[in-house]
């Protein structure tokens, strides 16, 4: 499973990425919506873990753009707010909402439920 984590809290997202990698998950992180889109153009990800509130492009808008770029990608939303608005925004259309602090085992279980996507991967694109 390839996971893209997007959060403007650099220390948080970089450490979480390392913890996922230690558990055998192919994870990368981006610090903004624009950086996430650039990463998704380079590689295909199965799952994106998106911070709801970020400067510039928030997680909800980023999801729309990533979906257009990578059909079939699955989404999890993470936020420090834990507010009803965030919950409702995050749970629309089947997305899962994760509140900080994140339990790593719970997160891995949710990611595992999604599994690898069936879309073409970056290597396939480069071969085209």
């Amino acid at each position, binding site marked *: 499973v390839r996971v893209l984590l997007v959060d*403007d*809290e650099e*220390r*948080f997202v970089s*450490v979480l990425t390392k*913890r996922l990698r*230690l558990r055998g998950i192919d994870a990368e992180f981006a610090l903004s919506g624009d950086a996430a889109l650039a990463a998704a153009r380079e590689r295909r990800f199965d799952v994106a873990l998106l911070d709801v509130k970020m400067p510039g492009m928030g997680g909800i808008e980023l999801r729309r753009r990533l979906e257009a770029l990578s059909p079939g990608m699955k989404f999890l939303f993470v936020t420090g*707010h834990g507010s009803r608005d965030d919950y409702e925004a995050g749970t629309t259309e089947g997305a899962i909402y994760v509140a*900080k602090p994140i339990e*790593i085992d719970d997160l891995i279980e949710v990611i595992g439920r999604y599994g690898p996507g069936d879309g073409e991967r970056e290597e396939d694109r480069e071969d085209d």
Partner: protein
Amino acid sequence: VTGSGRKTVKTTESGPLADERIEFSGKVIASISHELKNALATVGESAGLLSDLLKEPEVDDELRQEMRTCGETISDELKRAFAIIRNLNTFAHTADEALRETDIARMTELIATLSGYRSNARPVHVEDPTGGAAKVHTCPLLYQDLVYGILLAAFRLRGQNDPIEVTIGSREGGAEIRFRELGSNRLDEVLAEPERRILGMLHGGVTLDAEAGVLEVRLPPSIETGNDPDAGGTHE
């Protein structure tokens, strides 16, 4: 020139002032709790990573460095969390008295920091050439509400991360607060209706120099006895 719908601030806790204070306090406290949660979430993840690394069978230099980094991150984020709690404490004590002698520079710096929590840390630089001399008898919480509203509007209007410059001044015992680069030359955008209403409660005035891109807010020496020297409220 337009009027600003002046209302008198009383020390009693009822009516529009009480409503304004409750609403504003709620917004600020929510943003502080969010920031605190982010810091503690990073502490939690770093502690988790440290625990993960300690389970590794062999410890080489790279792993040792990784562990050191985890410890430093935990230490830094705890400092950040305590700084947030200090700001929360200072903010909470703002409400101790409805009216009091208020250090405008200190109050502006605090609210600039708090607005950063709400707006994902867009920078605000506060300069105080008066060296703390700009002190007026006013309602500190309403003043904070006013500045908070102006800064959040500017963050929305600018849509970028360039710093907003705020300069504190003093004139005839009152205070002048100048905001630069707010992202619009329209007074109704940089000072929306709620902020105009608050300015009226504070008996203050405002001038927008559209050419220079400077919004000047003025507060009288005392909310109870004085009005803005350029009485009339809002100028454009």
